[in-house]
């Protein structure tokens, strides 16, 4: 089925973005409105397309639109064409839906910023790029969106780039993403070299004939790409710093949408991973490590946004883990992705709301007792909190429980390890999220005198409220009759629901999970409700805490492994360039000049030495003759 409407999904925000960027200050008055409208229109189109899709039988739901032939050289033919199938529509709806809400939120949140128009331009640009990412029908098209969101992310993280650390954060995000992009490019190259195509459909068709080695290679490269974009281990370090961007950005890009692109990529490439067990194993390992990694650093964060960011990292770890579990996991990965999109976006907006009321203060130790001053924020944030820690019947419970279950059922020791990791992560999540709640909303007030906490205006709390509703109901909706699983089936092709030998019955798993969550909450309550909270983080803490505070030394490691040697290499090469390469050239020149001035001395000015030279020359010639007539 083809549809001519798909392109408008992208075109509308892209056009809006271009208009906003090019029209300059004139557009300050109406720029934010145009941006929001563009996003909303895109949402409208996607909603319409969704209804169209629903009207079709499951196997005919995928829609395509060929725009033009983009790159065509020899056998390398890539069309600019779009694919809207069951998987993409989930994302499209999430992106445009949450995106629109965040646009609305931003109107108010950014109202005092001189560059609000530019902000909306970037947001629109992001929406367009993200849509291209999920709508592209080939890896190369995806790549354009992939880097496009990277660019938008860079621009938005660095939105307040007058502050050098923010600019650095933006750069860091871009560069680390580029490492991921390297993986994606290589994956495309390998795919083209081995299968002669880069489109999803083409590769899907060719994959079964391809060697496992090839597919494993592609899979690993795709994993690198996903790790870069989704802040998965070992490319996770940029996400925390990315919180430099305005909070709506964190909500949209660094929580709900962009960072989940890695999960999308893996899910989209299911035909590769399913045939490459090694790559798949790596995916789950990465997912498991990251979910724990994120959760652990989340426990020590005092910056509310960074705490949420760590949480995001951890939650995406869950998704990656799920996606790595193969056909059984893809749907759960996407489900968690969607629910996470709601609750995490909602919580970020909540955090933004808090900051909005607290003079942009992000240190939770300077909060406290805010529930009285910001009741709506407290409620919406609280709903998100309940969702993320997995309290039934909130959304997170359904999605996370599924993942834990699937992980445990992965079989053998692998399943036990993964399951315990997931369970442990759930406990940690409960701990640090409770900590966030306690520090922010309960207890005694610790803020400075010049802070005048107040509730946010309606334009801000309304999106929060809508997202909160999503956090509450989405999980239930998705799992009702396995709705999402069936919806995605044509894409992720769970080749017949193979029966896994279940390690534990689902109800037991849920029970264990809930217990662990409750333990996590209790510890947090014990630590932060019973004891007074200092407004400055205590210094006399264990070495472990310190390490956790330093994000498990992730930056130190990067510095030691890449940055310092890199800088040294740069310095060395500059010296080599000057001294050795240019030096050799100059050396040759100097040699010529030097020998010239040495030879010049033969010109003594004495006529007798000249005649001696002639005589010597003659003698040499005679000697030559003497030799050759020998």
């Amino acid at each position, binding site marked *: 089925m083809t549809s001519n409407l798909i392109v408008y999904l992208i075109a509308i925000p892209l056009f809006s973005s271009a208009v906003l960027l090019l029209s300059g200050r004139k557009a300050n008055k109406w720029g934010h409105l145009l941006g929001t409208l563009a996003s909303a229109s895109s949402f409208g189109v996607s909603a319409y397309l969704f209804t169209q899709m629903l009207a079709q039988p499951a196997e005919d739901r995928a829609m395509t639109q060929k725009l033009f032939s983009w790159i065509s050289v020899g056998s390398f033919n890539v069309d600019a064409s779009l694919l809207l199938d069951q998987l993409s529509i989930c994302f499209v709806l999430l992106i445009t839906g949450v995106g629109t809400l965040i646009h609305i939120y931003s109107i108010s949140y950014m109202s005092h910023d001189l560059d609000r128009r530019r902000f909306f331009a970037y947001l629109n640009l992001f929406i367009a790029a993200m849509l291209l990412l999920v709508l592209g029908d080939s890896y190369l098209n995806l790549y354009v969106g992939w880097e496009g969101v990277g660019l938008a992310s860079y621009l938005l993280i660095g939105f307040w780039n007058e502050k050098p650390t923010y600019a650095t954060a933006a750069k860091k995000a871009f560069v680390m993403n580029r490492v991921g992009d390297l993986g994606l490019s290589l994956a*495309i190259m390998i795919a083209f070299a081995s*299968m002669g195509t880069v489109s999803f459909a083409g590769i899907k068709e060719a994959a079964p004939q391809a060697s496992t080695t090839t597919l494993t290679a592609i899979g690993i490269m795709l994993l690198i790409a996903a790790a870069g974009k989704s802040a998965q281990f070992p490319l996770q370090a940029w996400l925390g710093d990315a919180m430099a961007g305005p909070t709506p950005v964190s909500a949209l890009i660094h929580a709900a949408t962009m960072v989940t692109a890695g999960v999308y990529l893996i899910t989209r490439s299911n035909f590769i991973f399913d045939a490459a067990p090694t790559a798949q194993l790596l995916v789950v390992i990465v997912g498991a490590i990251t979910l724990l990694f994120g959760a652990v650093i989340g426990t020590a964060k005092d910056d509310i946004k960074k705490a949420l960011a760590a949480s995001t990292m951890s939650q995406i770890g869950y998704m990656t883990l799920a996606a790595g579990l193969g056909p059984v996991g893809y749907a759960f990965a996407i489900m968690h992705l969607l629910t996470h999109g709601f609750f995490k976006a909602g919580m970020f907006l909540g955090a933004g709301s808090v900051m909005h009321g607290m003079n942009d203060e992000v240190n939770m130790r300077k909060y406290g007792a805010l529930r009285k001053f910001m009741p709506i924020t407290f409620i919406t944030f609280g709903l998100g909190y309940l969702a993320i820690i997995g309290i039934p019947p909130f959304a997170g419970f359904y999605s996370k429980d599924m993942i834990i279950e699937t992980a445990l059922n992965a079989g053998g020791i692998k399943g036990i390890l993964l399951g315990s990791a997931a369970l442990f992560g759930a406990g940690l999540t409960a701990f640090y999220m409770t900590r966030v709640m306690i520090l922010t909303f309960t207890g005694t007030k610790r803020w400075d005198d010049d802070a005048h906490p107040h509730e946010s205006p309606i334009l801000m709390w309304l999106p929060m409220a809508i997202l909160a509703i999503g956090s509450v109901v989405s999980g239930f909706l998705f799992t009702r009759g396995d709705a999402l699983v069936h919806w995605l089936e044509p894409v992720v092709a769970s080749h017949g629901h193979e029966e896994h030998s279940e390690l534990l019955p689902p109800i037991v798993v849920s029970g264990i999970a809930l217990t662990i969550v409750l333990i996590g909450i209790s510890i947090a309550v014990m630590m932060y409700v019973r004891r007074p909270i200092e407004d400055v983080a205590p210094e006399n803490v264990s070495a472990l805490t310190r390490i956790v505070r330093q994000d498990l030394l992730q930056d130190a490691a990067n510095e030691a492994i890449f940055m310092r040697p890199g800088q040294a290499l740069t310095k060395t090469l500059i010296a080599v360039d000057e001294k050795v390469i240019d030096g050799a050239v100059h050396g040759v020149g100097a040699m010529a000049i030097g020998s010239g001035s040495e030879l010049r001395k033969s010109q003594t000015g004495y006529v007798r030495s000249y005649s001696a030279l002639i005589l010597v020359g003659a003698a040499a010639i005679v000697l030559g003759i003497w030799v050759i007539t020998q």
Partner: protein
Amino acid sequence: MTINWISLTALLPLIGAVLLATLPKGAELRAKQFAFGTTLITAASAIAMAVQFQRDNTNLQFVEVRSWIPSFGINYAVGIDGIALVLILMSVILAPIVILAGWNEAQGGRWSVKTFYILILVLETMMIGVFSATDVFLFYVIFEAMLVPVYFLIGGYGTGERSAAAVKFLLYSLFGGLLMLASIIAIYVMSGDQGGHTFDIAKLANLEMSSTTQNFLFLGFFIAFAIKAPLWPFHTWLPDAAQSATPGTSVLLLGVLDKVGTFGMIRYCLTLFPEASKTFTPAIIVLAIISIIYGAILAIGQKDLKRLIAFTSISHFGFITMGIFAMTSQSQSGATLYMFNHGFSTAALFIVGGWMIARRGSSTISDFGGLQRVTPVMAWCFFLAGMSSLALPGLSSFVSEFLVLVGTYTRYPVAAIIATVGIILAALYILIPVQRALHGPTTPGNENLPDLNLREKIAIAPVLAAIIALGFYPSPLLNVINPAAAHVNSQIGFTDPVPTVEGK
């Protein structure tokens, strides 16, 4: 007698230069306007030619052959294929942009403004000639003669150590040129032994020679082109030259002149010495990879904006060279497209960078800071140019870079993988100056820098528009390039590696 489009296009700037010489001394503005007009007319002529170009015809088109030095079998012979057409188009489009963008850059020179534009126009004639020559001798003559105007442009109108840089440039190029001359002499003599002296490239391609001879002659040509391109380790002249030249000159130098090197590799190295090309391919690929990585790393470490751009170009030329010698249809087409796109993205970088430098009076990156706040339009232009330089998907350079990489991968996977690391370094070498110059607090002395004026906006707009448009829709160029690139590969006898699995 019909007028040959190539000759006409090439002649226009020369006529302009002669007329310009007759202008009175003081008339600076008139000289500028006149030069600008001439380049516009030239561009129009070239575009008119491009419209008539039959893109599926792999033969040379617009061929004109006139006897020049019959006793040596030397002809004035011109003709273009898709590759040459694209490069000529790039040259003639860049020329008016350079003039418009650098409206005042001739002021600080040793000689009059008029002389500057005469040199530019003469150079333009030679640029067209060098890409369209089909007589090796004619090519060589222009190849060498081009050095003279550039030499004076750098040495006379540049900044800093301009004369040293100009001399370095000239000597490097002359040295390479002389090596090529040695090879040309050998070819000429051989052609004489095999049926009459000729310099017709088509006939020379059929020369029979021993593989040793071919290897030596290939090296003569290749080193000349490698110096021109420039390829590691023959690159050290470029940063100096770019640092000293005016931005406009740098655009022409890096954007157009250096392309003669890579163009020459395709047109002469591959065509005349197919066997030797194959022999040396591994070595050249290695050099290309070193260039890519080395250029990028050195760019990261630069403190001077112009030097930085120069080193990025060294990295980019590594890509082009790699694409040429990987000899797959993707890499070959990609390399030519890369030449075109690099022309524009480097032009954008140098032009905007030049404006920044002219405003600030310094080319040290750390002297800038916070320009995004002070001069948002200029900052944006620079940013976009930078994005093009790091081959952001959606911009033109991505298409070419990716084609080169993917094409190379099918034949030399390891090389492609190493080269791909270059894209990470590219992010660093662009974002570091972007951060230092555009972001952060506005450094003292920059508060009152003026943003772009209308002339500057008009100058840069087509470049940026081309960068974006060709990123989304490169087909017009690719359609012209593909047949020619395929023809080159088939001449050497290379076919694309077949994928192990046949997909759709």
